[in-house]
């Protein structure tokens, strides 16, 4: 720094060198004065449900999105006030939950920026922006989102659109390691929040709309070294390989693993959802097309598959089976069963025995005309006339958006209910000839979204009894309900609307107890909650975009003259 000040030199070099100087170890003014960072151990992750923070994507390994906090209650929720806000400066869809450890909050934005803030004051501690490889955005289907970070030790982990996993030091934001798991722009992208289990950072690839052959990969959290990699589409000769036709179809078979998995420490099992086969048009890939539209139960240390259950066989409708597996115990024929609960894009709500994968029951949670029943052994029954083929158009319900898209449901063990963000839409699906080209869209179908028979509403928030699958309460909305759900022990359910308001519902009745003022943009970011210094906070990112902004303009009522407001902003609420 002194050399720079005493030696006249070309101005811009000086400015740049000056800014570079700030990056050098020991000179960062931004990171000083922050609270001590408490390392995130495996023990803390196992106990994350009871942590004061929000340590992972869905708070705890069971993916319930449920917090034990009781300071904000049905009686006082209407007094919630904004504690702080932060504008991200980006216009695309903001889909991440704020992740909190102690006083450190980490948010991610579209295009893979990470921002660390003080969880009490909102002071920005550091920012990291992944410089994406050229062409990385060629293979994005549904915007350029990122769904948040994972924490372990002193590091923060990010999965990127150009298929890197990046470990950042939590206190400074400096890169600890950066590992490429796949080439950029070749059909693969990553948008999910990683999951850390036993010192492994586990991520899955997206690419079901680009003919990628997707996989789940585990890296050593300290070094980034690969520990295992599991293709979700088996090769010929591997178990399940015969569910694909001979030839190269499996190489472009999709099976994206684009949402964060769950983990059951009791049985030491990792659960990961696998998405749709590619292309959407099923004609050229006869067979069940394993393990697309399935849940995989895996050994988390080896990636070996213990069992799987396929929700949709030989999918023709983009019933991307990736939605989260919630681990909860249910009453089943008078017995308590360790269940896996799942609300699928295909419109069915499933309960499986998570120990052995046995199908328990399933019930539709929206109007379905494609998979018309499910036998007691778990085999789906289809209406064969609902399959599109080249030149053939069908009316299929749900639409490729699914009865529920990726936005996670929440399960409250006290009420015994699952809270579902629901989309009511059907589609005319027209098959068209398609050929594979690396990095380009690979669909073979053209969807035109239609109303579901019997309703002009596109969205619903509903509660489902996790012991029976029956609906307990419902609130219908004009726009699709496209936000994650958060439930708390005080009997509240939080979720945001595309109109830009954060809602608090009464968990038992569904009554709307509070709505925030209209925030800067529609909310598609998953809400989280945490406690600092005796205050409970509820945090959410507003920032409309993503899949709905591309395919679903009609559902949101936006027009070129009246577009949906854009712009990412973090809102953090607490009681006065």
């Amino acid at each position, binding site marked *: 720094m002194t050399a720079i000040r005493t030696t006249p*030199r070309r101005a811009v070099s000086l400015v740049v*060198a000056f800014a*570079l100087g700030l990056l050098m170890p020991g000179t960062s003014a931004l990171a000083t004065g922050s609270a001590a960072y408490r390392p995130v151990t495996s023990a803390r992750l196992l106990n994350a449900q009871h942590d004061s923070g929000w340590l992972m994507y869905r708070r705890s390994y069971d993916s319930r999105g449920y917090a034990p906090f009781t300071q904000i209650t049905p009686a006082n929720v209407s007094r919630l006030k904004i504690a702080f806000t932060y504008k991200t400066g980006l216009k695309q869809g903001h889909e991440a939950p704020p992740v909190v450890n102690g006083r450190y909050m980490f948010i991610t934005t579209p295009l893979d920026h990470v921002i660390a803030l003080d969880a009490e004051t909102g002071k920005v501690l550091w920012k990291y922006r992944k410089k994406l490889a*050229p062409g990385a955005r060629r293979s994005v289907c549904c915007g350029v989102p990122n769904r948040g970070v994972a924490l372990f030790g002193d590091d923060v982990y990010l999965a990127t659109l150009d298929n890197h996993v990046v470990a950042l030091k939590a206190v400074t934001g400096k890169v600890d390691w950066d590992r490429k798991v796949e080439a950029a722009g070749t059909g693969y992208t990553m948008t999910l929040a990683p999951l850390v289990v036993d010192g492994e950072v586990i991520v899955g690839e997206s690419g079901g709309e680009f003919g990628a052959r997707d996989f789940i990969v585990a890296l050593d959290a300290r070094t980034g070294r690969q520990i295992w990699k599991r293709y979700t589409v088996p090769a010929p000769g591997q178990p399940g390989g015969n569910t694909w036709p001979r030839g190269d179809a499996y190489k472009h078979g999709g099976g994206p693993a684009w949402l964060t998995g769950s983990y059951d420490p009791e049985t030491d099992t990792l659960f990961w959802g696998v998405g749709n086969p590619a292309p959407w048009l099923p004609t050229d890939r006869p067979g069940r097309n394993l393990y697309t539209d399935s849940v995989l139960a895996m050994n988390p240390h080896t990636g070996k598959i213990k069992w799987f259950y396929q929700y949709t066989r030989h999918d023709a409708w983009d019933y991307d089976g990736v939605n989260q597996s919630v681990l909860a115990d249910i009453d089943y024929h008078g017995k308590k069963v360790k269940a896996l609960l799942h609300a699928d894009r295909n419109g069915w709500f499933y309960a499986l025995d998570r120990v052995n994968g046995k199908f328990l029951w399933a019930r539709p949670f929206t109007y379905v005309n494609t998979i018309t029943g499910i036998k007691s052994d778990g085999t789906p029954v289809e209406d064969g006339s609902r399959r599109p083929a080249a030149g053939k158009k069908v009316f299929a319900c749900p639409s490729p958006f699914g009865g529920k898209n990726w936005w996670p449901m929440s399960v409250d063990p006290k009420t015994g209910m699952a809270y579902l963000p629901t989309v009511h839409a059907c589609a005319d699906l027209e098959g068209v000839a398609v050929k594979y*080209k690396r990095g380009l869209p690979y669909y073979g179908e053209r969807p035109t979204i239609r109303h579901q028979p019997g309703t002009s509403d596109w969205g619903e928030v509903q509660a489902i009894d996790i012991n029976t699958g029956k609906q307990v309460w419902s609130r219908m909305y004009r726009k699709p309900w496209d936000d994650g759900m958060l439930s708390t022990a005080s009997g509240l359910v939080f979720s945001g609307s595309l109109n830009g308001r954060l809602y608090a519902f009464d968990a038992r009745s569904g009554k709307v107890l509070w709505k925030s003022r209209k925030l800067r943009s529609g909310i598609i970011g998953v809400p989280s909650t945490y406690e600092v210094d005796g205050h409970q906070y509820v945090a959410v990112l507003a920032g409309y975009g993503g899949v709905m902004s591309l395919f679903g303009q009609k559902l949101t009522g936006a027009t070129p003259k009246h577009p949906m407001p854009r712009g990412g902003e973090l809102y953090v609420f607490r009681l006065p």
Partner: protein
Amino acid sequence: MSSGFREALPRALLAGLLVSVVIAPAARSASPVSVCVDRSSPSAHIDRIAARRAAAHAGLRIRIVRFDSDHGLGAGQFRKLAKRRCDLIMGFPVEAGSMAVPAGLEHTAVYLDTGFVLLSRKGWHLDALPRGSQLGVSYQSPPDQVLSARTHRFRIRIFNTESRELAALAAGRIDAAAVWQPTYWAYRQRHRVAAHWKANRLGLPHASWGLAALYSPRVRTVAARFADALEHVKVPRPGPQPGTDASSGATTGRAPGQPRLYTAGQARAGARLFVADCARCHGADLQGISGPPLKGATLAGPDADLTVGDIFGILSQRMPMGAPGSLSRAEYTRLMAFLLRENGFPPGGTPLRYTQALASKVPLAGATSETDVASDGH
């Protein structure tokens, strides 16, 4: 600082100041927001345009104040400027991934993605520089700090200033030069020799930067309005037109002999359609929003290996995403003409036809790599 390049800046600056003088009287009643532009910075011109467009968008009255960092500025001077003379300071480089600024000051979002580029006649990438070739860097710039710490198969020549470095490249004394991209842009305005250079992203740590405006927390309210507006305005990048004498009017960096696949009229009509039907997802500047960029590396990068037919297939069969196939054949063809123009293809006398576009095996790669540098920002 003895080259013509140095003298060029004040003239460009003067033009900007004249405009700000015209604006000033209207702003006299309420005190206008003072926006400082570093006249020594090669991005001064862009900084001024960005400031004016942001101000217009936000409905803010601004006064552009010039300052000169030619003798160097430390954190203290920036703080002093922000305290005394400037509500906002344009053109501050923040590094992608760090965004560090002087303590006590804050910054807006990046309004221009830039950084260090590798210039050479042959269009080399760093890892393709031939053994024994000479690469220029300027003293203590990030490329110098990163490269000089290691040994390479090429040789590093360190220059005291970037203008000397560029003069050496122009004279053929070095084979390639790592320079700050806005310096290259400014140089190219004055030196025709630079039309023969190709610029590539410099694939090194600390090579990717953005320009943002600095401000002090005391003006946060005004700064927030300004920052908001900066996100919404289009900041011009000196496009890939090294041949300023090219008469076609198209932004072509292609060598003559490239196929002429469409007419200028088709592309103009396509541009209008693009605004109506595509810009919402791909951005008015084609740099991508929720949809991918349609310019540069994404479409026309060599690794993309895409043909006109590949892209036209996606365009005509899948777009717009909410209503695929809803435009007429002629409209899709016009949009393709516009995309070709924006990716460096020259117009010709024969219009592009729908079936011909679908079947076309003409590779999209080869547009100047200058656009690639910009293609993956936001």
